[in-house]
Structure formats: structure tokens, C-alpha cells
């Protein structure tokens, strides 16, 4: 049997009836010890016998490709093959694509694309041959600057924003620019492929295996049933591993050609080019407010970029549709077509930069109105979706702001900027709201119950988020088993298809599938006991019905029971607007001599439904807040203005925050009971914590020293230009 649930409306909350007490507790990750002792093999750390090694060859610019010395490369000692198969892919697939991205090695769509694979007996030989490749590329000067292109896309309009701006007591019209950003996951993209007859197994580092399997099958021209994908451990994804990437397809093709396993790992410098980047953006934000700070008009127009034939465009304005009330609205995205590496989903695509810029603009408006920035936000919380009229499934913005403010100590804040100074440092605080759409997607899971305990099986991935932990908890809770008697197997397409990790929907989606599979087992146990499932209490390996208790093992009588769960997105997604809400608070110090910014403390206050495991949830929030610091202060891909190649493509030059940049981060969860999100009442969290985090930092910078940085990141040169009234030096290519 399978219990299938299509989430069309509210779900009853049954977790409080369960007695094991695992859900909501801080269990440690079951796979944690393996990871920290180096025993959890990542994609390229578990190589089959006889494995050959491949390195992708780079095109130095865009255009028609001619590999000049192919024969010489093939003849290099130790080289097994120079592969330029038309099935090889030119970029990473978009998340959930389920089909091949652009294929063929005769064109380079952007500088840095891979145009061949060299396979050799050793990694060193393959790498050397890849370096020796003479790649001639023939093409006109590429379009690389998004600001200089024709654009596509029209904004949605409600009412008349222009008129509202003209008539408003206060009107703000500002433009923010945000650089392109890299996910910069620790584990580089890697794949090991081997064939068994006409079936291929690819051990790789990907986030959404059921889609990746189809993408690989489509690339290889075979049926998905003949592709097995393994990703038991993923060393960070952040969206960069949503879709299949060039090394995986190349490894599979090479393994077929050579009749032996092939391992291809992207070098760090390749990861910065071959993996989908977050688009840069230019965001025009207009706010029209009445005397009391009520918004009468709101405009959010974004310009993003992508390759000419890509469907994805960073949905910068996604949350602006529902975040704040205002009658007159103009919201939308435009896309410029440029020869920069493929743009795709990076952690909280859209809101990460869209909410962050918008929340900076809200701070500007609060300053102009002489109104507390929290009060401004509280005044503009809509009763229902401002454009569609949909009710909100739950709306916790007011609570996250007020509870966060109290914990952070916002109340004593002097609103005027440039008031607090310690030596050379200006000190200030800033606040931002956070919004992120909440998603549920189809997922399946199976639980096998034996006298040893329960084993959860799904092709879901754990990309460092804590999936192993929370699925253990959910199964243990429903089946009355302690943590030690539940094992979780993930990351194998031979297992039932879970949701994959993306869009923060993993916990709620695959978690629900596991829950339903456990309900299936509970029903089977109840049948054996002749009672109603609802009357069954399972705890510590025992079943209790009325006054009788019996070990679960006795009920099983040596049998193996299997439960299946299947959750599907239903009409709930249309009936109500589901979202998660948060508030970020930051204290920043700005050096008056150098323009350097140091974040001193941050507090994030979040409402994300039921918190399944506070420890792993908090860790997600720490990550998101840290990304916010990077977005505000340090991160940005730099593209060469002549050919569009990524200039800063290593971790020394692409500046993610290091430990010294990250102060104590406090995380507070607001209780939320949102029955629309599925049977667990859980919501997404990993992405929420990045949305707006950078705005709290940048608003704190303004409060500290009076400088608004509208061109991110706020590096010392830009802060200094503001501090001293120097003209901002053009920041070459970092747009």
C-alpha cells in the first residue's frame, strides 16, 4: 500500500499525539561523525577499480571552436581519449529541467565553457593535456555588459504607480546594483561513471536526483530507467548542483567509449565558470508613501542577465508581489542576453537579492519619513495578497519583527545616523524583513520495518542541511523508535524518488513522504493489533493500545513490513499565499579611516512553521546570515569587460566571508502553526535566512556612518567614497 496525500487544504497536526519526542529536538546529525572524520566518501572519494581520469578543456572565449592539436593531445603518453562528443553539454542544466541543456562541443557560448574532455590514466596527465590544448575560437566581440543590451520582459502593473509617485507625500526612487555571485560550495562538482551492459551508474554530487537522472538520460539518449545516480553525501550545493553539470555527462560518455570507469572533477577555477551563477541585477525601486508612512505605490523593476537561449531569469521581484500593501504597483523583471557563464538558481533565487535591495530601500524611506524602520514595516503588512487577494496561510512578519527587536535590544536605538563612535569606528544597527515563498513538491519515500528497527529509503539528498537527521526524527517519532533504531538511506535513484534538495522544500516535501510511509506502517501495525491507527501509541519500541503494551518486534513476528508515502502538491498552493517570514538585525562598525566594515553581531528571527530540529535549522540560518554578510560586504564575480570571462575564479580572490568576518549569530524561532503546508506543518528555512540579511548589515552601515551603499558589495573603496564625498571610482566589471 501507499498512502498518497495531495495537499489541497489544511492538514491536521498529528505530531503532538506522537509520544517518542524526537521531532523538535536537537539530535545531532547521524552522519556527522563520518563527515568530520573524513569517512563519508564524497563523489570522487570512492573510486571503482580501474578508474581513468578526465579533465575538461576550457574555451578561452566565445565563438566557433576549433581544437587545433587534437591529434597531438591524443598521442600524449598516458592519454586515453580526447572526447568531443556531440552529446556533451555546454553548461549546467537548470534546476528541475529534467532534460539536457545545450549540447555539442563546436561552439563556446561563453568564455570558460568546456569544449572537450581529455581522459588519461592519471589525473595529472589529463590535466596537463587539458592545459596543452590549443583551442582556437572564432567569433565577433561578445556582448558582455547587461546594461548595454536590448532587454526582454514587461513589468506587471496594478493601478498607476507614476501618478502615485507624483501625488505622494514622500516618494523614493532609487537604483541598487548587485554583482553576480557564486555558490562556492566546498565540494567541487565531480562525477564517477561506469557502465554495466547498457546501464550507467553515475556517482556524483547533485541535489535533485530524480531530475538529474532524466537529464543524464536525455543527454546520453537512453531511457531514464538505465541511469542510476548516486549522491549519498553532497558537500554543499546552494543551487549550484540542482541540474546536471558538464563533468557528469562527460564522465558517462567517456566511460562508455573506454569501457572502464571514468572520474571527472571540476577544478576549483572551473567551478566558477561551469556552474550556474547568480545573475547580477540592476534594481529600480520606487516607493510612494503618505504622511503616515503607508505605502500608496510600490515599484520594483529588475534587470538581470543570462545566455541568449536560457529560460531562467533570476526572479528578483518574486516576493515584492506580496511583501507589502500598496494600491499602485509596478513589478517585473527584464533580461539582457550576454556572454557570461550561465545564470541559474543560487540559494533563494530572487529573494536573496530582491528582498535585500528592497529592504534597503524601505530603510531609506523610513529615514526620509523619520519613522522607525520597524514601524514602517508593521504599518504596511497586507491583510491578503495585495495583487491576487489570496489569503495568507499564516503571516508572522509582525511577530518576527517585534520578538526579534526585543531580543536584539532595538528599543533604545537612536534613529539618527552617525551618533555612536568608538575610536575610529562608527557603530550602527540595522533591521530588515525577510520574505521567501514556501514551496511543497512531489516526493516519495519507503520505510522498511523489521525487528531491528526502521530503515527509511528515498533518493532525497542531504546537501549539508541535516536531512539524515530530520528524516530519522520523523520516522522515529511516528513509529515510536529511538534515534538509534532508525537508519536513513539517501542519494540513490534506485530508492523511491524524493523531492531533492532545492527551493527549501526538502524537509516539508520528503519529510511528509516519510511521515506518510510511517502512517502506512502504523496502519499495518494497527491492523495486526485489531485497533484503529489513531488509537495506537508507539513509543520506545512498544505499541500501546488502551491498557495493553507490546513490543513492536512481537507484533512483527519476524515479518518485514513496508510502508510507502507519497505527497503531492495540491490546490493549497493556489488557495492561499504561503510564505516564510523573518527579521534580521545587525550591528556594524564602519572604520572612518579605511571604510572597512565589520559586523559585530547579528540576530535573525524567523517563522518557518514547525522547527523539526532546532540544531540543524539554526545551522541553516547561520549559513544564510553568513551569506548575507558576504552579499553585503565582500562577494562579487568580476567579468572581464572584453570577453566576459570570470576574472576572480578562485577562493582567494572571490571573497566569501571567513570566520573573522562572521560575528556571533543569534537565531530565534517564532512559533508558527501553518496547517496549509502539509501534514508536518513544516516550512522551508534554508533560503529564508539569506533573504534580507545583507540589508540589515547595509542599513546598519548607513546608521553607523550615514553612507548608503547602493552598489554592492560595500567594499572599503565604496564606503570611503561615501565617507569623504569622493567620487566613487568606477568598479570595473563588478556590476
Amino acid at each position: 500500500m501507499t498512502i498518497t496525500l495531495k495537499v489541497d487544504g489544511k492538514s491536521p497536526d498529528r505530531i503532538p499525539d506522537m509520544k517518542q519526542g524526537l521531532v523538535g529536538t536537537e539530535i545531532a546529525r547521524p552522519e556527522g561523525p563520518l563527515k568530520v572524520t573524513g569517512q563519508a566518501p564524497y563523489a570522487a572519494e570512492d573510486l571503482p577499480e580501474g578508474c581513468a581520469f578526465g579533465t575538461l578543456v576550457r574555451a578561452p572565449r566565445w565563438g566557433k571552436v576549433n581544437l587545433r592539436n587534437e591529434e597531438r593531445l591524443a598521442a600524449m603518453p598516458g592519454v586515453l581519449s580526447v572526447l568531443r562528443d556531440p552529446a556533451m553539454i555546454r553548461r549546467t542544466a537548470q534546476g528541475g529541467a529534467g532534460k539536457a541543456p545545450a549540447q555539442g562541443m563546436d561552439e563556446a557560448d561563453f568564455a570558460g565553457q568546456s569544449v572537450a574532455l581529455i581522459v588519461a590514466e592519471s589525473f595529472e596527465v589529463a590535466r596537463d593535456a587539458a592545459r596543452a590544448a590549443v583551442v582556437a575560437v572564432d567569433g565577433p566581440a561578445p556582448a558582455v555588459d547587461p546594461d548595454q543590451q536590448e532587454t526582454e520582459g514587461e513589468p506587471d502593473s496594478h493601478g498607476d504607480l507614476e501618478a502615485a509617485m507624483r501625488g505622494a507625500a514622500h516618494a523614493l526612487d532609487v537604483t541598487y546594483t548587485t554583482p553576480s555571485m557564486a555558490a562556492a560550495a566546498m565540494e567541487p562538482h565531480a562525477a564517477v561513471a561506469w557502465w554495466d551492459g547498457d546501464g550507467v551508474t553515475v556517482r556524483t554530487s547533485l541535489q535533485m536526483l530524480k531530475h538529474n537522472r532524466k537529464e543524464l538520460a536525455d543527454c546520453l539518449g537512453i531511457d531514464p530507467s538505465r541511469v542510476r545516480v548516486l549522491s549519498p553525501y553532497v558537500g554543499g550545493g546552494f543551487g549550484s548542483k540542482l541540474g546536471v553539470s558538464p563533468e557528469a555527462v562527460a564522465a558517462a560518455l567517456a566511460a562508455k567509449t573506454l569501457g572502464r570507469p571514468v572520474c571527472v572533477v571540476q577544478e576549483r577555477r572551473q567551478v566558477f565558470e561551469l556552474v550556474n551563477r547568480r545573475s547580477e541585477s540592476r534594481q529600480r525601486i520606487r516607493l510612494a508613501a503618505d504622511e503616515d508612512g503607508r505605502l500608496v505605490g510600490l515599484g520594483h523593476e529588475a534587470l538581470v542577465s543570462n545566455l541568449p537561449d536560457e529560460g531562467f531569469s533570476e526572479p528578483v521581484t518574486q516576493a515584492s508581489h506580496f511583501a507589502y500593501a500598496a494600491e499602485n504597483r509596478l513589478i517585473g523583471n527584464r533580461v539582457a542576453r550576454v556572454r557570461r557563464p550561465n545564470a541559474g538558481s543560487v540559494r533563494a533565487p530572487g529573494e536573496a537579492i530582491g528582498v535585500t535591495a528592497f529592504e534597503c530601500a524601505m530603510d531609506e524611506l523610513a529615514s526620509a519619513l523619520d519613522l522607525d524602520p520597524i514601524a514602517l514595516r508593521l504599518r504596511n503588512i497586507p491583510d491578503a495578497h495585495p495583487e491576487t487577494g489570496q489569503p495568507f496561510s499564516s503571516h508572522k512578519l509582525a511577530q518576527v519583527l517585534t520578538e526579534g527587536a526585543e531580543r536584539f535590544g532595538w528599543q533604545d536605538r537612536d534613529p539618527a545616523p552617525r551618533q555612536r563612535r568608538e575610536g575610529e569606528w562608527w557603530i550602527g544597527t540595522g533591521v530588515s524583513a525577510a520574505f521567501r515563498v514556501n514551496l511543497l513538491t512531489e516526493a516519495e519515500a519507503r520505510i522498511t520495518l523489521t525487528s531491528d528497527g526502521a530503515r527509511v529509503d528515498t533518493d532525497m539528498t542531504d546537501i549539508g542541511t541535516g536531512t539524515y537527521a530530520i528524516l530519522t526524527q520523523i520516522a522515529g517519532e511516528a513509529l515510536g523508535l529511538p534515534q538509534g533504531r532508525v537508519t536513513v538511506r539517501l542519494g540513490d535513484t534506485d530508492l523511491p524518488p524524493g523531492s531533492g534538495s532545492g527551493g527549501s522544500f526538502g524537509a516539508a516535501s520528503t519529510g511528509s513522504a516519510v511521515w506518510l510511509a510511517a502512517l502506512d506502517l502504523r496502519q499495518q501495525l494497527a491492523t495486526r493489533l485489531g485497533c484503529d491507527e489513531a488509537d495506537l501509541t508507539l513509543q520506545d519500541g512498544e505499541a500501546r493500545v488502551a491498557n495493553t503494551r507490546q513490543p513492536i518486534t512481537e507484533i512483527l513476528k519476524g515479518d518485514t513490513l513496508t510502508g510507502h508515502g507519497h505527497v503531492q502538491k495540491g490546490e493549497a498552493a493556489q488557495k492561499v499565499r504561503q510564505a516564510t517570514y523573518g527579521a534580521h538585525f545587525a550591528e556594524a562598525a564602519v572604520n572612518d579611516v579605511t571604510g572597512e566594515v565589520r559586523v559585530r553581531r547579528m540576530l535573525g528571527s524567523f517563522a518557518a512553521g514547525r522547527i523539526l530540529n532546532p540544531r540543524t535549522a539554526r545551522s541553516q540560518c547561520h549559513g544564510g546570515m553568513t551569506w548575507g554578510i558576504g552579499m553585503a560586504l565582500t562577494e562579487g564575480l568580476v567579468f572581464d569587460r572584453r570577453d566576459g570571462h570570470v576574472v576572480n575564479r578562485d577562493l582567494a580572490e572571490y571573497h566569501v566571508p571567513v570566520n573573522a568576518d562572521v560575528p556571533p549569530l543569534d537565531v530565534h524561532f517564532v512559533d508558527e502553526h501553518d496547517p496549509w503546508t502539509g501534514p508536518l506543518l513544516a516550512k522551508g528555512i534554508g533560503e529564508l535566512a539569506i533573504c534580507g540579511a545583507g540589508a540589515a548589515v547595509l542599513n546598519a552601515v548607513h546608521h553607523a556612518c550615514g553612507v548608503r551603499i547602493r552598489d554592492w558589495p560595500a567594499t572599503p573603496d565604496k564606503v570611503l567614497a561615501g565617507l569623504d564625498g569622493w567620487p566613487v571610482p568606477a568598479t570595473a566589471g563588478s556590476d
Partner: protein
Amino acid sequence: MRPFDYHRARDLQDAQTDYVSGAAFIAGGTNLLDLMKLQVMTPERLVDISRLGLDRIEDDGDGLRIGATVTNSDLAADPRVRRRWPVLSRALLAGASGQLRNKATTGGNLLQRTRCPYFYDPDTPCNKRDPGSGCAAMGGELRNHAVLGTSAHCLALSPGDMPVALRALDAVIEIRGTDGRTRAQPMEGFHRLPGDTPERETVLDPGELITAVRLPAPRGDRQVYRKVRDRASYAFALVSVAAVLRLEGGVISHAALGFGGLGTVPWRDPEVDALLTAERPSAALFDEAATLLLRGAEPREGTAFKLPLARRVLRAVLEEATQ
């Protein structure tokens, strides 16, 4: 594959006999190995100098003699250095990361190569990497590039922190020539301006070995190292200043300033030092020093910010050192 031989030298003589054309000495390897992986440097032979007993810090009259393979971590932590040459300790600790400093050596640090991203990218022309091929940085994206000492052939910045402090401390580099004789080379003149041979970065000839760095007794007790960077740690200097000053009766009697983040070599300007010497500290004087320092600077789009930044940092450092 590019095979290379590896030889672990037993002693100085052995190290140098073993050095053949196309070889490279390897110390901590933190710079060399990265560049080898990218094939920016392609030595055919590595001569490992890490076990030659050059890892000692010894008293040297009233100064110190620092062996070439003393690690950055050990040097920064040495109590003598921390007490009498604190600017050196600070400069070292401002560089790289703890893990790198544990491997990086004194000699290697002096010879670390530029971080110009075009130098690191063999798909672009670079006169330093590939003499005569051109300079991709010109007309490209600049930030970590020099504004002082540049030439029509190269804008590459000297990235190090330690060498900036060594300049202000009048350190002397002990070089063992291929003939086995040791000579003393002041920091001044050790690094070469790029001119039309940006590939030649120092006065070392092939096969010559740095054996030690000598620190004379500090000529100033007021020592400051200040580094401005794009993140709190693990980033190269946008601008850095090393100051070694002495004040007598309210008058600056010794001034030695080293600068990082600005020059194609670790920068020191004798005229700036002279301007400050025998003067009373004042804001006007510090400003004048900055103007003098930057008189020949060539700011470009992307590096122009370094001028006002250097001015501000210099002023702050001098204020701190003369308080």
C-alpha cells in the same frame, strides 16, 4: 604530463649543486605548488630546501638572524620579534591564514609572486608569465594592482605583507651565490621594478639561495603595521603601511615607512622618510608626506581608490606612531 624531479637537499652545497637550469627551490610550497598546478611556473626539478637547518632565529649582535625556512608562524610568535620588532610580527599575522603561515617560510614569502589574476590565467597574455606576450591587465579588470612603480609592460602588485615590514626595518638579505659565497643584499634594491623585464622580480640569479634575513637593531621603538583589506582576514592588502619611528623631544628623529598594496615592489620612498625626519608631527606634515609618496602614482579605473585610501591610512598610522 610534466614530470619533475624532486630532490631533498642535504646541505647548502648539495642544494646548489643540485640546482640545474629550469629547477626551482621549494620551501613551504604554498605559492610555488599553486602556480605549478596552473602551469604558470613549470620547473623541471624541485630542490627541497626545507631541511637545511635554516629554520633557526639567532641573536646577531644587537639584531637577529632569521633563517630562510623559519615559518611565518614561528617568526611572528618569536618573543624577541614581538618585543623589539613588533611591526614584523604584526605584518606576518596580517597575512594569509593560520594554516598557510604554518607552512610559508621567510625566504618564500620574500619571493611570493603577484596575485594579478591575469598572471594566474595562462589563457591571457602576461609579460611576467610569458615575456613579450602583452599585458591583459591593461584594459582589463583592476583592483589588486599597483599604482606605484608600474611600467608600460606590467601593473602587477607586490602582494606581500612581511616584505613591507622588512623594508621599514632596513632588513638585509643573505644570499648564497652559486659559487658558494654569501653576500648581503639590503631589502632596498632586492626587488626589481618591472620596467621592460617584469619577469625578473629580484636581483637573485638562477640557483642563488636566500639563506637568511638579518634584522639590525630596531632604529625606532614606535612601530605600527596597518593593513586594509576586502575582508577581515585571508585577503591581500588594498593598502598597507609599516611604520618604524623614533621620537626625541617631540621631534621625529627616525622615520622609515614601508608600503604594501601600492607598488610593483614592496615600497619605500626615502624622500618621504626624509621629509618626516627632524620634524614635529602634525596633520599638515603627514598630508605632505602622503602627497610626496603619491606624486608619481598612476591611478587607473579600479585602482584610483588606493590614492585617497593610502593618504588616510598613512595619516592614521603616523598619528598612532607619534602619539
